[in-house]
């Protein structure tokens, strides 16, 4: 059955291709006419929102999260919404042209690119607001695979992004690109809604392909930030982005910078769709490093000040998460304190107080006040909190190498579930081909007890065997983590002896092995802050709160039919690891050449000598006689 159905699929695909290519021109004109006459184009204006979330951390750090959201264009509901292929990008106002062109030419439907330096400390800082915090560079994209060009487009995409962001993204080639089966589901809303809301349209589901790649060793520095800032409508000239000073941003314990592009719904029924570009910068400043004081202000953190809101922004907010002190409420003072800008979100133990500052409002008045810098500071009574509520993230994971020597080793992943409930999770681990995994050595420990049968824990397992110099090994597990448990996965591997030329210039440093990613749904109550998702921004914006809720509902309904869970999941990134492979003596070739040459020279020299020289027995009498003869002459 299998091959036949495959062939059928293939043939239909080919047919479709031919048909589509034939009818493209006609279709385009027809569509345009059709659109103009029947469905009114709900051309929502492009919109730009900027937001800064500040959160004091228990260990004296200050967590800042910049989020800039740009929306572009809309299309009618019935048609397949294809941000990449549509005529969305005929004109650019706020949306950056460079990104638009990339999406268009490589038929990208959803794009997520994150640059991170440092490691997110889950047990100290809780979960981040940013969705991706894995050290290095992470790139994943959903590509339109209509014309079976996804592979080429992925190559083009990585190269183009590498040029745009001055990073070595072109190193994400086939040997490290993977296609996860359970993780990294698309966050956009293409046909999820159109198929739900208009059942007639279900057949038009376009084939799309997920490609994922990460570079754990990639540095992040100013040259990456420069092009990132250039994507903003106001650059760093005004608004919240004027705080972005590279010298301070890179002087932090953690720095992460991302762009996320995805199509989203603008209303409850998803009649209006738009393409959303979210740019985030997440940093953790070490406030207490200088003098042990936990006090901070905008100017002390960023060494810059906001003197006006970005004129192009629809909303421009600064949000401060107020610390949850256990004993006294008045341990700290936040200035300025606006009583009307203080909200409580969430409920019960997940309650969070926030202070919201609307820069648009602050700078909407007369021009004289607009030159005043916006001052915001937090002061503690005794320069640091007396007591803080400890952070207890539900799921924490660690990964490490075991074993010793340069021949073989082992890999262990530990996942702690501190929740009182069982949690469904997905573990994705990618290992480069130079680690030869042995699947039969895969073991599972539950609370330090070896499990003979781990079917209760590992529900599904996808394993892709590595191919030398062609593709990495992928291990993807659908897990059921019991409450209050510690689960340990172990697997053994052999280290490959690489070719002489395959080593990097600093081979003795070792090879960086990327993180494992654990995707878990977070129990979330209504109105609570969405960690690990750029959606949290919508919570703060009254107009969108209901939308997020409705989207969540619809996707939950979707989940009923399909296991393909999509949104509202937090991704937990483990540590990146350093692997030392056996390195050859790099001066060996020269030694070999020298030695060989010496041997050959000795051999050849002596042979040559032997063959060309004429050996004669020289008698002492004879020579004397000759000498005498010569003298006589």
């Amino acid at each position, binding site marked *: 059955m299998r091959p036949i159905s495959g062939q059928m699929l293939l043939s239909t695909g080919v047919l479709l291709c031919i048909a589509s290519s034939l009818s493209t021109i006609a279709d385009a004109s027809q569509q345009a006419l059709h659109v103009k006459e029947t469905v009114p184009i709900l051309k929502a204006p492009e919109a730009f929102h900027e937001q800064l979330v500040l959160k004091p951390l228990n260990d004296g750090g200050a967590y800042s999260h910049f989020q800039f959201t740009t929306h572009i264009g809309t299309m009618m509901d019935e048609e397949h919404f294809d941000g990449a292929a549509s005529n969305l990008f005929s004109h650019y106002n706020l949306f950056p042209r460079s990104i638009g062109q990339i999406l268009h030419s490589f038929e990208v439907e959803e794009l997520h690119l994150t640059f991170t330096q440092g490691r997110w400390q889950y047990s100290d800082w809780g979960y981040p607001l940013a969705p991706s915090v894995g050290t290095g560079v992470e790139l994943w994209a959903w590509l339109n695979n209509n014309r079976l060009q996804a592979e080429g487009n992925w190559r083009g995409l990585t190269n183009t992004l590498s040029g745009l962001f*001055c990073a070595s993204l072109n190193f994400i080639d086939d040997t490290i690109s993977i296609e996860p089966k359970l993780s990294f589901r698309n966050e956009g809303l293409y046909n999820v809604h159109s198929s739900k809301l208009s059942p007639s349209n279900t057949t038009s589901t376009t084939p799309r392909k997920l490609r994922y790649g990460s570079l754990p060793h990639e540095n992040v520095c*100013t040259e990456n930030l*420069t092009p990132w800032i250039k994507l903003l409508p106001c650059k760093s000239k005004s608004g919240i982005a004027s705080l972005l000073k590279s010298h301070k941003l890179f002087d932090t314990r953690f720095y992460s910078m991302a762009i996320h592009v995805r199509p989203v719904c603008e209303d409850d029924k998803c009649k209006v769709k738009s393409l959303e570009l979210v740019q985030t910068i997440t940093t953790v400043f070490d406030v207490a490093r200088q003098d042990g004081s936990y006090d901070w202000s905008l100017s002390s953190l960023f060494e810059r000040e906001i003197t006006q809101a970005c004129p192009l922004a629809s909303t421009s907010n600064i949000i401060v998460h107020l610390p949850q002190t256990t004993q006294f409420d008045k341990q700290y003072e936040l200035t300025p304190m606006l009583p009307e800008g203080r909200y409580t979100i969430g409920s019960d133990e997940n309650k969070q107080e926030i202070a919201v500052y609307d820069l648009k409002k602050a700078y909407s008045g007369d021009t004289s006040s607009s030159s005043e810098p916006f001052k915001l500071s937090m002061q503690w009574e005794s320069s640091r909190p007396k007591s803080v509520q400890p952070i207890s993230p539900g799921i924490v994971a660690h990964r490490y190498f075991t074993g010793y020597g340069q021949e073989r080793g082992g890999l262990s992943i530990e996942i702690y579930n501190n929740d009182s409930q069982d949690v469904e999770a997905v573990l994705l681990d990618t290992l480069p081909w130079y680690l030869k995994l042995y699947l039969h050595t895969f073991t599972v420990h539950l609370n330090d007890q070896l499990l003979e049968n781990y079917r209760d824990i590992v529900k599904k397992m996808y394993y892709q065997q590595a191919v030398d110099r062609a593709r990495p090994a992928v291990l993807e597990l659908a897990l059921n983590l019991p409450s209050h448990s510690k689960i340990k996965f172990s697997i053994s591997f052999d280290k490959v002896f690489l070719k002489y030329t395959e080593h990097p210039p600093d081979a003795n440093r070792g090879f960086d092995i990327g993180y494992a990613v654990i995707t878990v749904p977070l129990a979330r109550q209504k109105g609570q802050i969405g960690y690990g998702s750029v959606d949290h921004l919508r919570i703060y914006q009254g107009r969108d709160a209901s939308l997020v809720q409705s989207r969540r509902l619809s996707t939950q309904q979707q989940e009923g039919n399909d296991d393909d869970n999509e949104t509202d999941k937090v991704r937990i990134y483990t540590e990146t690891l350093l692997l030392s492979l056996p390195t050859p003596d790099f001066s060996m070739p020269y030694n070999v050449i020298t030695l060989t040459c010496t041997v050959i020279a000795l051999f050849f020299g002596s042979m040559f000598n032997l063959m060309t020289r004429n050996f004669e027995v020289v008698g002492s009498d004879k020579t004397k006689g000759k000498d005498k003869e010569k003298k006589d002459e």
Partner: protein
Amino acid sequence: MRPRAILKHLTITTVIGAFITSVLAASVTTDTSTENVEGFFNKTRSGHTNNWAVLVCTSRFWFNYRHIANTLAMYRTVKRLGIPDSNIIMMLADDVACNSRNIFPATVYNNRGRYLDLYGENVEVDYRGYEVTVENFIRLLTGRVAKETPRSKRLLTDDQSNILVYMTGHGGEDFLKFQDAEEISSYDLGDAFQQMYEKKRYNEILFMIDTCQANTMYTKIHSPNILATGSSELSQSSYSHHDDPDIGVAVVDRFTYYVLEVLEKIDMQSKATLKDLFDTYNPKLLYSNPGVRSDLFHRPLDQALLTDFFGNVQNIELTEPKDHSSSTLATEGDSVSTQQVEIGTEVEGPSVLQIQPDHTDNNNTETLHQQQGSKQPHARERVEDHTFEVGDSSQSQNWRYVAFVSLSVVLGGALIAGSSMI
């Protein structure tokens, strides 16, 4: 006098007369094109229309901070003098700015006083880390890059580009190390430049290298219009200038330091020449004997401006209105920087432009094309030796084209005839 002697005299005079007449004829023919050829007789202006810079630091590791600082200082200088980021290809083999050893994060200084942060808020590094390899460097120069390569990683020059190639790192006699793992030899470099010449990828090149025994690196260059300068002679080391106690390592090399001292004083309108720069070389300050190789360079050094290479000051190219869209802009639009000015008049004629279609695809390099290209320069060299106008070469190419077409027609006819007979 004997008749034999008379005959001899006669033959001599006729020979001489013939020679004189031929010379006269030649001078007459050259006279007609004097206006166009002026540049050759009195070539003081560069004649370039766009500027590019390739700045390469080949050293990895923190203790080589100074090499990255050297390169970034040159980057700041050429940027200040007007070369846009799109025309600067910068290769940095390591990231010292955001290195955890750097106590001034996201900065690079080349002076103990730390007056100027070379990294700044706006910097574009095109090749970095493991991408800085000999292969990538030669591919960049010769244009033989993969088809996915983004624009920022391509050297999109043409035959009217002046290129500054600055390299720094650790080297030795006839080689320069890349990242402590591989070397580029002076032969590789000479061949790469020759390939660039054959593909008409430059008008003039200033090759500047700051490394130990640097002068040996330019000895194998053999392509015209390349001016080279290095920091030290054979068996001499190049030294660093001073260190910064807070950063903990040396921050700049001597040669680059003193070159920058000159460059800092000039601006885009400066009339300072390369000779002025070379005259400031002081072996006592450098602790080594810097070298200049100008035998391939066809302009007098005291008339070649520094801004011809370090700046973006360009000549205005005058073209006929008709050719305007068809030749230069259409074919070279991609590689010409935005600053290039094209004004349509009838002064210079289309001769300059007619050559250009020949190298429209100089970026799509195939071996075939390379072989093709290797034939053209001979023609061009011959032309230059006889100081003919550039238009002649285009005419000769027209002639070639006609010959080629007619030959192919004849061959095709023969083929058809042959096939019909069969």
